[in-house]
């Protein structure tokens, strides 16, 4: 997971779990995470992948997420 | 007399302590007492006082023990399980006849519990949870004004009797704001003399503060001395408030926060012509037995309202005349009665009163 690009991964954010702390976007080497203008039901501007194509699936975002709101699936591997 | 200020109960308590000459505060954080601690943290340095956050409640009460032995007015504060941890220390203070003020901003128990306001520390406060035959004077404020006034009084009582005094509040009283007029600050030089204090035995014989005398006989004698003191306090220091008691046939008994809620119910019932009154114990130890002694014997029905499972009710039962009937409304764990609930209980008793 040392930042090496993985192919064909799907990074998904759970908007209801997200508290908008910004850790994911802070550590994302590709700066592909943005925040919604809307509030979720708990009053947070939640994170989302604003440029999925550029995501290299390094997983840093998920490693840092305190709310386990990020899920990474490897789709096409092996 | 100063101007009217809008303050929380925790702040009013802290400020009144400072005005009573308290310059030493040792405590450990716990919700819902924190605002008191934080108030003292800000204010004490301004008056050259000492604020020290201790490593635990055990340490806090021990620091109080030390500062009190030095003859200083000193206070600590905690809540519920934090007070439980102080029980040994409080018993030592009582045994050593040292004055101090302990504030319990009660939260709901047992165990860790939750921070909702509660009165479930009544027994812990009034029965002593430490070892031995000792008593702590316990005062139960019911407003921000009383958070100030009773704290101020507490320091005087503590010094007068050389005994710990506890303020038994709760999270609601601690955190609500109301207008308050604070007592005028005491002149530090005019505080009571304490010839017994430890200040270094220069040019005088040594002073000793002992939680255990050296012989069995001395310990028995100490207990007798304490007992005499407690009897004197019981005789002299009972405090309570009567509300609509002149012609009451049903009497609600409640203290602190629950007395405020009950007052609303009593007022509503009065508006409908129901002869209900209220006794609000202000000193919880000594319990105001006298409030019940002079009672018109036509009062036969009491309704004790507590935010606990039934603790003060024992004191009410021990105080009312024979043949009285005592009911209880209350639950533990942070439950809060509504004025409506109490009102309905009053109505029920009113309807039944002729058949009792």
């Amino acid at each position, binding site marked *: 997971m040392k930042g090496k690009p993985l192919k064909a991964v799907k990074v998904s954010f759970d908007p209801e779990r997200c508290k908008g702390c910004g850790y994911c976007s802070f550590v994302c080497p590709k700066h592909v995470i943005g925040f919604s203008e809307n509030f979720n039901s*708990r*009053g947070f501007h939640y994170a989302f992948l604003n440029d999925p194509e550029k995501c290299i699936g390094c997983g840093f975002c998920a490693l840092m997420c305190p709310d386990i709101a990020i899920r990474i699936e490897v789709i096409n591997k092996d | 007399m100063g101007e009217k200020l*809008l303050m929380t109960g925790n702040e009013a308590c802290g400020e009144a302590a400072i005005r009573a000459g308290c310059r030493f505060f040792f405590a450990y954080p716990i*919700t819902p007492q924190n605002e008191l601690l934080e108030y003292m943290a800000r204010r004490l340095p301004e008056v050259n006082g000492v604020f020290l956050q201790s490593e635990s409640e055990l340490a806090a009460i021990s620091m109080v023990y030390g500062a009190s032995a030095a003859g200083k007015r000193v206070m600590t504060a905690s809540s519920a399980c934090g007070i439980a941890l102080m029980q040994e220390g409080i018993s030592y203070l009582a045994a050593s006849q040292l004055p101090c003020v302990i504030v319990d901003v009660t939260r709901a128990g047992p165990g860790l519990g939750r921070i909702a306001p509660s009165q479930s520390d009544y027994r812990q406060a009034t029965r002593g949870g430490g070892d031995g035959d000792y008593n702590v004077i316990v005062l139960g404020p019911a407003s921000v004004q009383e958070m100030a006034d009773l704290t101020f009084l507490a320091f005087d009582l503590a010094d007068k009797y050389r005994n710990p005094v506890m303020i038994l509040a709760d*999270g609601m009283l601690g955190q*609500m*704001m*109301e*207008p308050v007029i604070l007592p005028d600050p005491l002149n530090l030089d005019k505080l009571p003399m304490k010839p017994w204090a430890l200040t270094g035995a220069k040019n005088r014989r040594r002073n000793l503060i002992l939680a255990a005398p050296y012989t069995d006989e001395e310990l028995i004698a100490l207990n007798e001395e304490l007992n005499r003191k407690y009897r004197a306090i019981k005789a002299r220091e009972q405090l309570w408030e009567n509300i609509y008691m002149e012609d009451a046939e049903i009497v609600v008994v409640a203290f602190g926060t629950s007395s405020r809620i009950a007052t609303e119910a009593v007022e509503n019932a009065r508006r409908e012509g129901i002869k209900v009154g209220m006794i609000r114990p202000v000193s919880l130890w000594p319990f105001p037995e006298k409030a019940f002694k002079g009672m018109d014997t036509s009062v036969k029905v009491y309704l004790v309202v507590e935010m606990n499972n039934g603790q003060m009710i024992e004191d009410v039962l021990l105080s009312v005349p024979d043949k009285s009937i005592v009911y209880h409304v209350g639950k533990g764990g942070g439950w809060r009665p509504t004025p409506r609930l109490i009102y309905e209980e009053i109505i029920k008793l009113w309807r039944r009163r002729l058949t009792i």
Partner: protein
Amino acid sequence: MREWKEKIVMAGFGGQGIMLMGKLLAYAGMFEGRNVTWLPSYGPEMRGGTANCMVIISTGRIASPYIVEPSSIIVMNQPSLDKFEKAVKSNGLILVNSSMVNRAVERRDLKVFKVAASELAEDLGSVHVANMVALGAYVKVKPIVKIESLEKSLSSVLPVYRRDMLKLNRRALKLGFREALEVEGETS
């Protein structure tokens, strides 16, 4: 003098300045010689979720500071409306921050007002003064204290490090006072 007692619950997200709004109202009440109480929903032992505070202003003595049946509520977000709508007493009042509440008030026995507090506050330059906008709007529709008393009280209530915001807060109060709107067709 007529006797009256107003029981107001203010609610919103933590961070929306709910406590401050309540304190300001209580201060103003005190300055006008009323009896007042202010009670926070408290405890930092648990963060997130909604915050609320309860203010009572009365010409007579106030028994319990805890409000079971508010005569008014000021709701700054949707979860607060969900939580408190049912509790308001009949013929009571709801003031809604329409910037953050999407649904309509369901009860038909209440007076309902709205103000786009968050948006108006952003227009003023800081979403943080949405609370003042709402409070200004509230005393417009329920004149239990004068807006001048609120303005005067501001300096006692604002934390020291926010004193530079005094002006902005005053403007927000006034803006709210102007912008309060009765919600037509929703009152009975």
